[in-house]
């Protein structure tokens, strides 16, 4: 069912620029093209996250250049770096403060699986604490890989139902 959504629109010029589409498709199209990231830069991967905003890679081509340092205003948390246990609960707390709909990108080996830090101090993957939508491999991933992950997330958003899939916590609380 969730794959049956399509962003098909009909722009009737004769009727005078009236557009027919599905509500889900329209909302998803708007959401996926204005993803405001919460930059959770914890280690070296954050440098590549910064590079993705620069003119050579230009993350704003995909509508995700508005780095919000306030969780209340952001849509996607990009966990870029090594998550130590001491930091893990702060990351979780910021995630809980983000309003739905929200998504998470685990950028790099450390955020995805603990990376090379098989040690007493490092959480072995941020998915132990928060649900992850896209994992990006690499140590660090190049900015192109981050952009690829972002585009995959956009594709994923286009297949979800704008209310049922993306506002689960809200529906449960009702």
């Amino acid at each position, binding site marked *: 069912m969730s794959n049956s959504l399509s962003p098909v629109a009909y722009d009737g010029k004769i009727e005078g620029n009236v557009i027919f589409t599905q509500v889900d498709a329209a909302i998803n199209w708007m959401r996926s093209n204005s993803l405001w990231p919460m930059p959770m830069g914890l280690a070296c991967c954050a440098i590549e996250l910064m590079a993705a905003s620069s003119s050579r890679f230009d993350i704003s081509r995909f509508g995700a250049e508005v780095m919000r340092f306030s969780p209340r205003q952001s849509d996607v948390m990009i966990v870029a770096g090594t998550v130590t*246990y*001491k930091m893990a*609960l702060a990351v979780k707390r910021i995630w809980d403060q983000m309003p739905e709909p929200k998504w998470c990108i685990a950028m790099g080996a450390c955020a995805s699986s603990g990376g090379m*830090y*098989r*040690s*007493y*101090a490092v959480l*072995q993957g941020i998915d132990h604490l928060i649900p992850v939508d896209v994992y990006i491999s690499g140590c660090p991933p190049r900015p192109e890989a981050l952009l690829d992950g972002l585009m995959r997330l956009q594709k994923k958003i286009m297949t979800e139902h704008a209310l049922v899939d993306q506002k689960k916590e809200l529906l449960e609380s009702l």
Partner: protein
Amino acid sequence: MTSDEMTDRIRAAFPQAITGQNRFRDETSLSIQPDSIRVVCEFCKSTLGFNYLIDVSSVDHFGEEPRYEVVYELYSMRDAVHLRLKTTVSEDDARIPSVADLWPTADWHEREAYDMMGITFTGHPDLRRILMWDGYPYHPLRKDFPLQGKPSEMPGVAFTEVAPLAGGPFVTIPTDGTTQVREPRARHAGELPTREKFLSEP
């Protein structure tokens, strides 16, 4: 003043306190009795002009007594002289006087040694853990603590699990072999890789 003159003056002031002296690559190390370390540090700061404490670190000589060693790296900006002071701390009574009031930088260095090695610095203004969270039950840099960690639980504060090592830990061991022989791989304690062993079971 050179470091030799400095050590001579410490020796003259505290003849009983110094148990050993070592010189390696133009760096002088002095071993000090644990109960004199505080007065020797005060003397170094006020009389000899060691106005910069580079580092306070700790060493675990597991299986020996006294088990721990605390190392102070002193530097005199005025004379450009480096001096290393070492003292021992026993396992049963892992306490040593703090020098945080002499050099404020010792505050965080001593907190790190307390967190990682479990050495208590008496008289420290704020002896809390600095890297792990308050209430973590272990001291991870002790030799008897496994690299992958031990599970611990502090609901609402933090938690740890054992990290998967997949046959590890993967370590290098100094040897005369090539980089292939030296490369990190799963090894057990006491096992020294040789070139022959590597070629027979790569």
